[in-house]
């Protein structure tokens, strides 16, 4: 049986760590550099704005551009996608009395909730298991929340640089001193086009990586500085759609079971979410653990299949799909957290560091809280009596004292137990929750997603044929993500191009954006993998499943607005 991890991509960490190359007077100097304008990075920038206002004497030492935030998407929010039912703790602590929850771009408090176990034709309601209870949480479009937070960060003096990818980590004498941004205007072969613009060295005393799931430089930093946690990180892939609907939905819904299979040999862990977004919109998504084994599994097509369930078809009846997107979610939890969460000159936060509570399907509040704590640590580096080393180290202590740590500790073994199959895993997970993590099932072994031996079944024959109304193919979905990436640019996806057929099949089915196609077969039974990189919505699944996503030209990828 093939494993994708036996066919590693042409990629080396050394390629993406460099010393600054621009002459000293051409480097762009900033005080604190934040990579990623998501909830973590923007919370960091907002908190820094508050600290600068409160400490004008320290602020002077941050220089002309005290805080810069790099964003690879067209604008903040373009690459943000989540459910999202958000635990308000992070936002409340960040924004304090300045904003009430009602002042944020929210769709309101969770009104009520239901959980169903599905079979093909039935839906059995079950009482919401403790981790799924969402009383007191708020419904958001994370993309919209990102745009709101970006405005607050700019009010606080942060410089946000959209359409700018962070390509290389700049390191000098064992410390991170900033990042190099990606070139723009190269053609497919790497040659310079008329509008070529070379990247720049951005140097800073402290760099905060808040790149989100599958962060490119985060991966590089984990290897370069030996920060990997006890367990390898693992991921789930979520694909979701936003619908305009004829009738309002009066509750949030989670489902378990169908269309996923419960047999242990398939390792299919996941579920769906259906949330109202005001009176006339609904979002529906399916999340599946990427430790699945079946090369014919396609989360996008399973989501299409899910929508044909009578219960769900009724919710969407008379409606119209208005948006689509996909993203991975780190699910390794506590044992996969980087250790420590810092390196010289560098801090890691949010999804990039894997701060997600998988049983609760929540991470936005951890991203915000960790961004806030990273801001405080980074700011300390500029205070008298502090050394940069003691300042960044204080971040680890702050995270350990926060709700991030205690929450993730409580559910530390929850994800792995589902390797036992859905029902056994479900029972163990419930026991762990009810006991607040005191039921020890022992630390379970974790394997990288790409190590799972592949099997091939015929499950893809049951995927519904797209009708363009309820069910959609991948290409029209990529269109609905707003993706209009320039085709004539270098390929940003690193994979081994000649692999056994089942590995190629796995990639082709896995990718929700139809980036991979199975090409010509060779005499030895391997096939060539053909790529359409401009379809890529940068979900990150390929990095989990044996390849490596690097950032394409800044401004590429989806342009999410309501996801």
């Amino acid at each position: 049986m093939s494993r994708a991890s036996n066919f590693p991509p042409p990629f080396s960490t050394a390629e993406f760590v460099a010393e600054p190359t621009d002459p000293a007077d051409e480097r762009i100097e900033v005080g604190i550099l934040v990579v990623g304008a998501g909830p973590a990075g923007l919370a960091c920038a907002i908190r820094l704005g508050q600290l600068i206002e409160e400490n004008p004497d320290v602020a002077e030492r941050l220089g002309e551009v005290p805080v810069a935030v790099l964003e690879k998407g067209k604008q903040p929010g373009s690459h943000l996608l989540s459910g999202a039912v958000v635990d308000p703790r992070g936002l409340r602590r960040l924004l304090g009395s300045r904003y009430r929850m009602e002042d944020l771009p929210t769709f309101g408090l969770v009104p009520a909730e239901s959980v169903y176990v599905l079979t093909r034709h039935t839906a059995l309601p079950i009482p919401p298991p403790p981790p799924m209870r969402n009383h007191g949480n708020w419904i958001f479009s994370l993309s919209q929340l990102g745009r709101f937070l970006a405005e607050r960060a700019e009010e606080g003096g942060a410089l946000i640089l959209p359409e700018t990818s962070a390509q290389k980590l700049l390191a000098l004498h064992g410390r991170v001193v900033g990042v190099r941004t990606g070139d723009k205007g190269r053609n497919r072969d790497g040659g310079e086009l008329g509008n070529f613009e070379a990247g720049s060295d951005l140097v800073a005393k402290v760099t905060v990586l808040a790149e989100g799931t599958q962060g490119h430089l985060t991966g590089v930093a984990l290897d370069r500085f030996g920060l990997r946690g006890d367990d390898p990180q693992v991921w789930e892939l979520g694909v979701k759609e936003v619908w305009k609907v004829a009738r309002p939905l009066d509750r949030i819904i989670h489902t378990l079971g169908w269309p996923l299979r419960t047999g242990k040999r398939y390792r299919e862990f996941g579920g769906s979410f259906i949330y109202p977004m005001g009176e006339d919109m609904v979002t529906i998504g399916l999340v599946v653990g990427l430790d699945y084994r079946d090369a014919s599994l396609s989360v996008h097509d399973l989501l299409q299949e899910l929508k044909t369930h009578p219960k769900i078809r009724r919710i969407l009846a008379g409606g119209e799909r208005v948006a689509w997107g996909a993203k991975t979610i780190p699910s390794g939890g506590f044992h996969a957290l980087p250790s420590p969460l810092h390196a010289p000159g560098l801090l890691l936060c949010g999804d990039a560091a894997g701060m997600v509570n998988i049983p609760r399907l929540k991470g936005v509040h951890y991203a915000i809280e960790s961004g806030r704590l990273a801001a405080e640590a980074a700011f300390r580096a500029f205070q008298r009596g502090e050394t940069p080393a003691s300042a960044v180290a204080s971040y680890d202590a702050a995270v350990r004292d926060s709700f991030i740590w205690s929450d993730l500790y409580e559910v530390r073994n929850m994800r792995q137990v589902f390797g036992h199959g859905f029902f056994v895993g479900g029972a163990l997970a419930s026991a762990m929750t009810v006991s607040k993590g005191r039921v020890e099932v022992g630390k379970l072994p974790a394997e990288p997603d790409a190590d799972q031996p592949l099997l091939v079944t015929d499950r893809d024959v049951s995927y519904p044929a797209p009708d363009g109304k309820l069910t959609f193919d991948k290409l029209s979905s990529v269109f609905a993500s707003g993706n209009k990436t320039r085709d004539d640019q270098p390929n940003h996806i690193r994979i081994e191009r000649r692999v056994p057929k089942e590995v190629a099949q796995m990639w082709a089915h896995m990718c929700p954006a139809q980036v991979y196609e199975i090409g010509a077969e060779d005499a030895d039974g391997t096939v060539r993998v053909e790529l359409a990189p401009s379809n890529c919505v940068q979900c990150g699944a390929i990095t989990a499943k044996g390849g490596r996503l690097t950032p394409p030209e800044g401004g590429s990828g989806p342009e999410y607005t309501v996801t």
Partner: protein
Amino acid sequence: MRFLVFAEQHEGEFVKNSLGVLSKAASLGDADAVVVGADAGLAPELGKHGAKVVHVAAGDDTLAPPLPQPRVDVIAGLAPDYDAVLFGQSVLAADVAAGLAARLDAGLNWDLVDVELQDGELVGKRPALQDSVLVEVGWKSTPALALFRSGAFDPKESGGEPEVRDVDVQLEDFSTKVKMVEQAHAEESSGPSIEDADVIVAGGRGLGSPDNFTLAEDLAKALGGAVGATRAVVDAGWYPYSAQIGQTGKTVSPKLYVALGISGAIQHKVGMQSSGTIVAINKDPNAPIFEFSDLGVVGDLHEIAPKLTELVRARKGS
């Protein structure tokens, strides 16, 4: 309403799109044209397409090469006498329009596909949300600046002899700083460019191999048209990027669009859906392209295309 239309010409040939915009302007009000870098010999053709007055800016060598700033200087001097200045989309026109907007501090609506007068006000039509809806746009400032998509209007011959006026050109210092050193054409092609062609024969993955693009080329030649390609085949290196039609390629609207082996993904559709007549040949009866074709042929294009080419040649007697 008084319109000034930028009549773009290269080596004495007008860009068809700008003639289309002129014809449209003439149907709405008084339309004048401005031609830069050429002599008055071209004026009659603009008159035919509806221009009452043709402003000719020639006589200075700096005006001949297709550089935007000298053109901005010329038009900025004329613009105050007009309610609107209109452009047909091209690389040069986009540069000139943007420069003019900055110079005059006037609003520019771009990517328009139509324009009309509503109660004496100019209203533009602009596709939005990936061409799924058409929005109406207006202007707060004068003159109203507008840039129209390729093929938005057909050139119509309606007018007569125009009055020719020479423009006294005052170039700004900075406008003469850029010199044209060399002009290179990346991809030589015979026949019309795909933006200008009345007929486009486009090939997709259904052609089977790069060599089979000759099927599309032969048919295009017989029809007097240009060859287009889908993103998939450009990605695969079968055909140059300059021929790519679709969301991330060119947007075209020829009178006749023949799609050979093209499935019709929405990314392709948005680049050609405003074509006059769409003919699709595809062996897959479920291909989405049949949903928006005027004529669909389910069959093997390798058999059909050569026969079609022969028939067209026979009919044309060539």
